[in-house]
């Protein structure tokens, strides 16, 4: 049976009106985890960064790991949806918004970590270039400043990218709703009317944004990698880091997207919108990124091993067979050995359950990858007299857990106020089905044969 616009509206707006008890349970659990994390942060600010497990020589650890990790996750959305928009892949329509949402939230979470890890967080604003009474400007040679600019650009861009296509949907809700919703969404819709001019300018803006946001996303993670690559630390000072990190970011991003979509599909009953074929396509992407990631890891380690610089070898062996080897091999297992076969086999890839099974270890593995880039290098830096080690404290662990909970929480709330699928774009796809390629036609809800 065909889905009429009316049915689509009802299906996709349902979550805004009705929430099951599960939602509130989740809300309480996640909320308390986030609260715990904030308590831990407050505790740390009050007592000093010393309550973390950081030491000399491991001055960076969990916090920076989380920072890089969440930046990586953020590449799920905007970048992917932008690529899909530019390449005009019609199957993107149900995917883009949940993807872009991931970006915005992951980015905001990761942007907190530079503050969390500061020794004197109350002075964070000294990073901002403003004419101060101190008469001194920030150090623009510092990668941390590059981060500051890159992340802000990316955040502004992503938020815009998420909001622009939402106005028409807000207008839709405004027209159908009554009471406070009418007011709120009325304001949110900025008085959208839907004249051809508005439609056209909107689509034009989206095209420009899509083109602009891709290089920004690439630059953001490149610069994050340069936080490490710029320092003469064994295992850090490598030219490959830029692309290596970008690849890893997209890798983890897609995995996160797959997991998020699968959950939405279940919780919001979007089975008829997010269909196996979407997971299949994302699965293919994930497979490619997994191979690419492994290629980078191999290239990086081979050159280190063959070059055989003593200081580099210290880090090499400590990850290969030393104190960090368990983590290292877990990482290889999670990022390569598990996902590749699953995703390579069509019968498995096309099954949503399996793509999720392939994605979850990737999240773990990529977190470990960041940890393994940071800690072994710092703890085995040049003069062996100063070799050290690191053990996280409850504060760091609580905050880390809190960020995952926070991500879920934000996403949960988001799905209650935003149509998780861009309704007008979906309809646009419907009316276009005649032009659409037959292969793709099957993804459009209307043509689905139960």
């Amino acid at each position, binding site marked *: 049976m065909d889905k*009429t*616009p*009316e049915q689509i*509206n009802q299906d996709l707006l349902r979550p805004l009106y009705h929430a099951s008890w599960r939602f509130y349970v989740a809300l309480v659990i996640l909320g308390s985890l986030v609260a715990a994390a904030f308590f831990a942060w407050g505790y740390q600010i009050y007592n000093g960064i010393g309550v973390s497990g950081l030491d000399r020589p491991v001055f960076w650890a969990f916090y920076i790991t989380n920072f890089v990790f969440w930046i990586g996750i953020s590449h799920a959305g905007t970048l992917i949806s932008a690529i899909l928009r530019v390449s005009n892949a019609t199957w993107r329509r149900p995917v883009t918004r949940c993807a872009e949402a991931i970006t915005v939230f992951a980015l905001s979470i990761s942007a907190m970590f530079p503050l969390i890890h500061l020794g004197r967080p109350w002075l964070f604003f000294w990073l901002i*270039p403003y004419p101060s009474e101190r*008469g*001194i*400007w*920030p*150090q*623009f*040679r510092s990668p941390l*400043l*590059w981060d500051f*600019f*890159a992340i*802000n*650009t990316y955040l*502004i*861009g992503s938020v*815009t990218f998420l909001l*622009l296509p939402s*106005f*028409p949907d807000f*207008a*839709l809700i405004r*027209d*159908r709703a009554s009471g406070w919703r009418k007011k709120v969404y*009325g*304001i949110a819709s*900025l*008085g*959208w*009317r*839907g*004249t*051809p*001019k*508005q*439609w*056209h*300018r*909107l*689509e*034009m*803006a989206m095209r*420009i*944004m899509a083109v*602009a*946001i891709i*290089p*920004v996303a690439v*630059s953001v993670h490149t*610069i994050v990698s340069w936080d490490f690559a710029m320092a003469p630390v064994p295992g850090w000072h490598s030219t490959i880091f830029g692309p290596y990190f970008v690849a890893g970011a997209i890798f983890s991003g897609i995995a996160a997207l797959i997991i998020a979509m699968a959950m939405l599909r279940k919780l919001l009953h979007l089975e008829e919108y997010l269909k196996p074929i979407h997971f299949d396509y994302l699965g293919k992407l994930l497979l490619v990124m997994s191979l690419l990631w492994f290629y980078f890891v191999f290239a990086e380690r081979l050159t280190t091993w063959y070059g055989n610089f003593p200081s580099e070898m210290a880090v090499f062996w400590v990850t290969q067979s030393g104190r960090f080897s368990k983590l290292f091999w877990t990482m290889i297992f999670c990022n390569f050995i598990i996902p590749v076969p699953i995703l390579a086999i069509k019968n498995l890839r096309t099954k949503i359950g399996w793509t999720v099974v392939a994605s979850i270890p990737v999240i773990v593995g990529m977190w470990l990858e960041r940890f393994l880039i940071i800690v072994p290098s710092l703890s085995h830096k040049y003069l062996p007299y100063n070799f050290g080690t690191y053990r996280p404290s409850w504060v760091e662990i609580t905050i880390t857990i809190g960020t995952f909970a926070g991500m879920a929480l934000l996403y949960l709330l988001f799905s209650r106020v935003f149509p998780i699928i861009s309704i*007008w774009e979906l*309809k*646009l796809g419907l*009316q276009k089905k005649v032009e659409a390629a037959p292969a793709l036609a099957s993804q459009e809800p209307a043509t689905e044969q139960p």
Partner: protein
Amino acid sequence: MESIKGNEMNAIYGLYPDPDSAQRALNVLERAQGELGFQDRDIAVLSGEPYEEYGFGHRDHKTRMPWIAALGGVVGGLSGWWFVSFTQKSYPLISGGMHLVTKWSDGIITYELTMLGAILTTLFTLLILARIPDWSGRKLYDPAISNGKILIGVTNPPEKARGELGKRLLAAGAETVKEYAR
């Protein structure tokens, strides 16, 4: 045909179930301009989704947005470069044996500000060109478009032509024709 009096809007329009009837109605109106005495800019089209393939979805399609965005990018980049080198000179501090103005690293800030410039320009151009935000509610609108209906009509129609317009809009296949007047 229903007509509502005492309203801020002053217009007459029909609601069409599908793009083809809407296109027909538009053609009718375009042909009737001179005869019934209203301008092309009085013709109003509203829809719940874009209809790129149809003429009515194609009205005032020309725009310089990409060029404006590019310009914004250039401005952002230049100001970024200027700002960075200015700050490095204004409080000269040598560090790491580098030059006072380090072109390579400054390039990064320049790049980021270029993109930021482009993005913000795009955003604001859109808001201006699309005439949003506008919460006044004075403009012609009908919630029905949210259910897939397409609105074709004339704002501020000449009094004498109202009846005739209504007929023709209906004839073009409108489900309903509405008239607003002060």
